[in-house]
């Protein structure tokens, strides 16, 4: 094994705690390791508790996507009772809630976490304000008070304190050495486009909060909403509250359509080289999200399906949790490796020094595999599956959105999305599609309420048995599995998006999706591996 000469520890601007080690030779990464740095232990804590408590506790798995975790947990608890049927009203409320969660998370990720890899706030200072408006008009990007944004930036720089942008240039002082700093980005990007980017960055911080307000109206607060309890929803819709939701939904949708998407399409041409690397394992798994009334995963708005490169990217099959296994030989766990996820049991590790031994154990993450293969989860997986799944009722909608975006960039092959830039694009395309659907669900709920028979909760018996809940968190597929006996949880297992994406090597030494995606990434300067950081953040890890 070559010794890693790139260490990114910690990787910042992500949700969790992650480090990456990589080997770069002749300017290209040839090997990489993803180190999940945080032990959670939620599965152990749940043992012996009441099944419905899992809804509250599992939300604390992730402060960015608690809505989805709680929801998947309630689905698992409900599935213990084979006769349980989710009331239609609750189905629609849960869809709206999840739609808002996705809008919140995707906007938050694109702006607060990812944008500064592509946008140079220091260069925005050189922008001509009139030209900025002209550029925005020409590109069809919604405008803002660009002058005020620039003045705010100038003030930060004058004061010698770049506040949230501090250290954004990998140790380069962007004021003293503006040209060197700009080489981290594409120097051809006009200062005006950078200013538009900074302006949207600030707007994005507000819009993620507006989307979160929808969750709060329905679920009481965000993070950690209280609504999707096992059996249905605790919230019962009222006309005025639905108005509040719809109003905010329209505000966020307008931002996505008029600002986020056109900006993405305007800056993408400067980073087209990122279409050539970061492909990863090219296997995709989506459990599907947003139930239609049949509540089958193949009927979901974004359908459940998996694709394996070896069978061709157009070949979609339906996933089953029985095929998910977890290898742990490279993780700091003591359990038997390769067990089925539904059968495994988390064992508390003992006697390790938890050092990053890249030849041995190096991660708190397990290595989940689907039929023995690593799978990419997340927006790209969902978009590819929906695009290729001709049986899906959403197929035309997704195709239209993807083809439309590609056409603007002068591209036509959808498989080009399987790349670093494509992953970012897929997330933003999905944001626009989900925003449109969310407004439809509010209408659907109004119709349901008008029947006068809308139900939001139904009893269930989760005392003895087992059940699985699968759903998609914004960043990828979620599976919760619960086993109960005499009204107590005897075992609880979950496979999260991070486990899929940040998987360490499997027992047979096959890299996880992020590790594989990093291989082949060109690195200009191993001291400032921004290209690798872009690959990492494209996964929203």
């Amino acid at each position, binding site marked *: 094994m070559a010794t890693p000469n790139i260490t990114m520890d910690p990787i910042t601007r992500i949700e969790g705690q992650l480090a990456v080690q990589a080997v770069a030779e002749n300017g290209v990464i040839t090997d990489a390791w993803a180190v999940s740095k945080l032990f959670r232990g939620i599965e152990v804590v749940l043992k012996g508790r009441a099944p419905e408590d899992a809804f509250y506790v599992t939300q604390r798995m992730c402060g960015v996507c608690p809505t989805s975790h709680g929801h998947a947990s309630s689905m698992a608890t409900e599935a213990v009772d084979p006769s349980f049927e989710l009331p239609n009203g609750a189905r629609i409320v849960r869809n709206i809630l999840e739609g808002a969660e996705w809008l919140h998370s995707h906007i938050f990720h694109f702006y607060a976490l990812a944008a500064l890899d592509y946008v140079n706030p220091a260069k925005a200072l050189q922008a001509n304000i009139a030209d900025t408006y002209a550029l925005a008009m020409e590109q069809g990007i919604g405008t803002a008070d660009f002058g005020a944004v620039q003045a705010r930036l100038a003030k930060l720089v004058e004061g010698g304190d770049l506040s949230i942008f501090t250290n954004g240039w990998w140790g380069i002082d962007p004021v003293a050495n503006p040209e060197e700093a700009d080489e981290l980005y594409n120097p051809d990007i006009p200062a005006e486009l950078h200013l538009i980017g900074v302006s949207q960055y600030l707007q994005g911080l507000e819009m993620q909060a507006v989307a979160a307000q929808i969750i709060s109206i329905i679920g009481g607060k965000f993070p950690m909403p209280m609504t999707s309890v096992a059996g249905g929803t605790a919230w019962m819709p009222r006309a005025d509250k639905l108005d509040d939701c719809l109003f905010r939904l329209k505000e966020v949708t307008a931002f996505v359509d008029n600002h986020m998407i056109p900006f993405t399409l305007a800056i993408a041409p400067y980073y087209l080289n990122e279409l050539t690397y970061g492909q990863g394992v090219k296997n995709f798994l989506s459990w599907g999200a947003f139930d239609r009334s049949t509540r089958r995963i193949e009927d979901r708005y974004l359908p459940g399906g998996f694709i394996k490169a070896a069978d061709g990217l157009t070949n979609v099959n339906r996933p089953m949790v029985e095929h998910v296994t977890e290898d742990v030989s490279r993780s700091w766990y003591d359990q038997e490796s390769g067990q089925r996820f539904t059968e495994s049991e988390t064992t508390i590790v003992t006697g390790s020094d938890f050092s990053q031994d890249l030849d041995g154990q190096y991660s708190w993450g397990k290595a989940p595999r689907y039929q023995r293969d690593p799978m990419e989860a997340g927006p790209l997986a969902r978009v590819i599956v929906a695009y290729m799944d001709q049986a899906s009722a959403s197929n035309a909608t997704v195709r239209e959105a993807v083809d439309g975006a590609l056409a603007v960039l002068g591209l036509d092959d959808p498989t080009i999305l399987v790349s670093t830039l494509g992953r970012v694009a897929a997330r933003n395309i999905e944001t626009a599609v989900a925003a449109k659907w969310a407004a439809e669900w509010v209408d659907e709920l109004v119709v349901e309420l008008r029947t006068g028979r809308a139900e939001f909760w139904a009893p269930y018996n989760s005392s003895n048995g087992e059940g699985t809940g699968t759903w998609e968190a914004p960043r990828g597929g979620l599976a919760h599995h619960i086993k109960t006996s005499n*009204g107590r949880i005897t075992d609880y297992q979950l496979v999260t998006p991070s486990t899929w994406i940040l998987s360490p090597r499997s027992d047979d030494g096959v890299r996880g999706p992020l590790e594989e995606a990093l291989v082949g990434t060109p690195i200009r300067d191993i001291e400032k591996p921004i290209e690798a950081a872009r690959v990492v953040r494209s996964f929203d890890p």
Partner: protein
Amino acid sequence: MGSEMTFYENLSQRGVSRRDFLKFCGSTAAVLGLSSTFVPTLASKIAGAAESGLTPAIWLSGGKCTGCLESTLQATYPNVADIVLDLLTLKYSAASMATGKYALDAKKKVYQGNKPFIMIYEGAIMEGENGSGYTMINADGTNSLDDLEAAASSDQCAAIIAMGQCAVDGGWVRAFPNPSGATGMSEYLSRRGIDVPVVNLAGCPASPEELTAVVVQALLLGSDGTLESGIAAVAADLDRLGRPKYLYNATIHDSCPRRGHFENGEFVYRYGSEEEAKNFCVYPMGCKGPQTYRRCPMIRWNDSQSWCVESGGVCIGCATWNWVDNNAPFAGRHRRVGAASSGPLAGWPLHGGGLHPIGTGAALTGVVAAALVAHGLGMKAAKRIGKNATLKTEEMKEYDAKRLKKQGGAN
């Protein structure tokens, strides 16, 4: 006056009107328990401080879900809160900074520097086996405990804000069997012999309004305007759990908008029911509002949209000590603690309990009933259900309906 002009100019550049700003000062004053006559003073203090140099802050984390940072980003008036938090210039936060050694350098610069700083800490302190760290092992062999110790024992560390229940006492992470050896900030520091003022912001998550209130108090409300005197003012105003009194001096139940229904014996027994549609009291659903000290009904969440009980959920007592162990089962009114003698959980302590109010009956234990009496609340409920009595849901419901009729109530 000159400096104020600049400050308001700065505000308007950020799209914040003077009116918005005063509104913000008003709500902050309310959270701090100050009279509205104090609002102008607060406004001028903030304006003055924003002009006269920022206090550095670093945001560190242990075993966390990022929920408290997420929560902070949902601040009521994002722009204004931004400014108040700009009173603290955030020198390190994993959420906004560059990667790798550049991030670490920025952090070190603060605690090796010559200016007093405030540390905001999110997440549980995970000690693992024998203080091995158990998490966040850095490439250089140090771990998150080393990071914390280096920052906390710096001479410049003026105070630590333990943001959220995990940082306060370990939160859910330390719930039985506490697999990662999690603990809270005060406990950890006292064990390590590090003496720094700690302010606990309880709750899972803590809210931006709570954080803002403490920051304003520490930076602006000291007797002589210095950070030192401000922190002394905060420290003098803490309860025995190290939390600012003004944030945790009343129960959820005290100011719950559904309280009237509790007094009238109008309860929800099932989600999605007629009673829920009428916003009746969710006490029988397991609400921990009566024993949870926090001001959610007043401060509310996400720009004041709603809060847990208003949305139809129950209070799960996320701001109480060791909240998961002490409050589970969340859907039940009482705890059952025992050990399984056989079956798949043989030998495993049954913490929490497994009763769901629907179909299995809801009961008030003597302990909870006594607690209610002690708070001077719910005398009627206690009398109604009686000591150690177990009533089936349907019986409870019938009883309440009769009682309501007798009192000439609705329905």
